[in-house]
């Protein structure tokens, strides 16, 4: 599960039997009390019911694999919609895709479908009103910028061979081989630096990264065989500051992220400040968040380039294998980046079936999508994903958003 906090919005994505909607009102209250966002449903922010009026709300999920194991208010989509309708004025609920197969639910409120909330609560109103109005656009100077679009890929029936990578046992073997080859490298390096050391011994200090071990700190290697070296070599801790000395789950998460190709979705060669926080759960399961600051190039230092984020969650067990990938793709590109990201991610998991939902803010200059080269170019590129047949393409045209839902099956 993950949470992303931006100055203007919050994304909360939780799996398993979490009760996400039960936290909604507290979240709205925190936005009012701790961030100062405006509220209209109470007289004072000290009132625990005071809830900041959101500009827009999305709630979505794929159909559950084990719906009867979900606690309230997530026992059914109908129950979730009632919970949201009781919280917000003017929301709309949709079901997208095959009813007798993989489908996807969406609940959305948008600024245009609600009236301007009362400036101050009516006198005869109780201290707070039960429903929260979403905020009107009149409060905001700028509209949506044509910058980011949200791309989500939901994959099921993962290729069992690829899913193995997300098991603790498999990752530990990969990690120790990786450390082993690092140890061998270190020994070769040490031997190389210090000339012929036959008969002598060298010990690598493992409380610092091997790269930073200088000649004079090298004692001597024991005359150990490869297997001795393997067992005696303790993991080299990456360059970390004290506060975030890593844990086994995070260290193995990093190994898996590198080994499966996830680190290459936004390669450090192109995004030097990219950072991935990955965790491998025991006995299996994987979660990762990535933040990819835009590379600052001299010639376009003032160019407003978005910071990318992505979040990945993997349940590898064959009986219920599932993986999700979500990221923001830069608006206005010619669709190449979007289709390349989809192909790269699908290549990591090789799912039997997957959906791609693309939420794109309509450009503020008011064209409809077909006139923008991006829409057509991207549409073509996403129609053909190597090794898959596109089964559904469903477009929901909202006032200032367009939702495009595509569903694919392995050929």
């Amino acid at each position, binding site marked *: 599960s993950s949470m992303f906090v931006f100055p203007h919005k919050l994304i909360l994505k939780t799996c398993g039997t979490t009760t996400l909607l039960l936290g909604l009102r507290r979240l709205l209250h925190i936005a009012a009390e701790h961030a100062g966002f405006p509220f209209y449903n109470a007289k004072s922010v000290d009132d625990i019911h005071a809830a900041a009026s959101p500009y827009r709300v999305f709630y979505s999920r794929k159909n559950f694999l084990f719906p009867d194991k979900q606690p309230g208010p997530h026992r059914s989509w109908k129950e979730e919609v009632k919970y949201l309708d009781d919280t917000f004025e003017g929301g709309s609920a949709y079901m997208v895709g095959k009813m007798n197969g993989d489908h996807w639910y969406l609940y959305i409120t948008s600024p245009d479908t609600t009236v301007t909330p009362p400036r101050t609560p009516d006198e005869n109103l109780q201290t707070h009103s039960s429903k929260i109005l979403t905020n009107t656009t009149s409060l905001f100077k700028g509209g949506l910028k044509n910058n980011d679009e949200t791309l989500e890929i939901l994959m099921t029936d993962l290729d069992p061979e690829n899913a193995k990578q997300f098991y603790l046992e498999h990752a530990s073997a990969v990690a120790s081989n990786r450390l082993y080859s690092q140890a061998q490298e270190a020994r070769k390096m040490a031997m190389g630096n210090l000339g012929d050391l036959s008969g002598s011994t060298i010990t690598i200090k493992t409380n610092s990264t091997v790269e930073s071990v200088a000649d004079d700190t090298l004692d001597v290697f024991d005359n150990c065989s490869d297997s001795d070296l393997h067992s005696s070599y303790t993991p080299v801790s990456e360059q970390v500051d004290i506060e975030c000395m890593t844990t086994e789950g995070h260290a193995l998460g990093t190994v898996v992220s590198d080994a499966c190709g996830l680190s290459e979705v936004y390669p450090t060669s192109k995004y030097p400040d990219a*950072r991935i926080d990955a965790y491998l759960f025991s006995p299996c399961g994987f979660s990762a968040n990535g933040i990819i600051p835009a590379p600052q190039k001299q010639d376009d230092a003032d160019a407003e380039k978005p910071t990318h984020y992505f979040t990945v969650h993997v349940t590898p067990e064959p009986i219920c294998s599932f993986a999700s990938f979500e990221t923001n793709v830069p608006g206005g590109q010619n669709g190449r980046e979007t289709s390349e990201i989809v192909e790269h991610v699908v290549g990591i998991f090789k799912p039997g079936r997957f959906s791609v939902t693309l939420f794109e803010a309509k450009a503020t200059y008011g064209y409809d999508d077909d006139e923008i080269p991006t829409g057509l170019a991207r549409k073509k590129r996403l129609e053909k994903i190597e090794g898959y047949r596109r089964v559904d393409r469903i477009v929901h045209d909202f006032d200032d958003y367009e939702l495009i839902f595509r569903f694919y099956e392995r050929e």
Partner: protein
Amino acid sequence: TFSPSEGTPHLTINHNVAADLDSSNAFEGPEKLLEVWFAPNPDCLPPGVKPNGLKAVSSDTWVGVLDMVNCKILSVLEAEHMDAYLLSE
């Protein structure tokens, strides 16, 4: 502590949550996804809102919400434009 370089996001790990985490009974991959926007973009926060908007809220404050959701904070990646929390059920 500080990030190795200004641009690089900074990682903080919650060791006591990570220490005894066992996900043997975790299942049901498909997530519930909630996005709550309080403004169209970070450049037009309403008057009266703290300069960094929601990013001004401490992670301790979010713990209360996440308890109601049945999630714990495993680690946080902090960057200029956003903070990314890795959670465990």
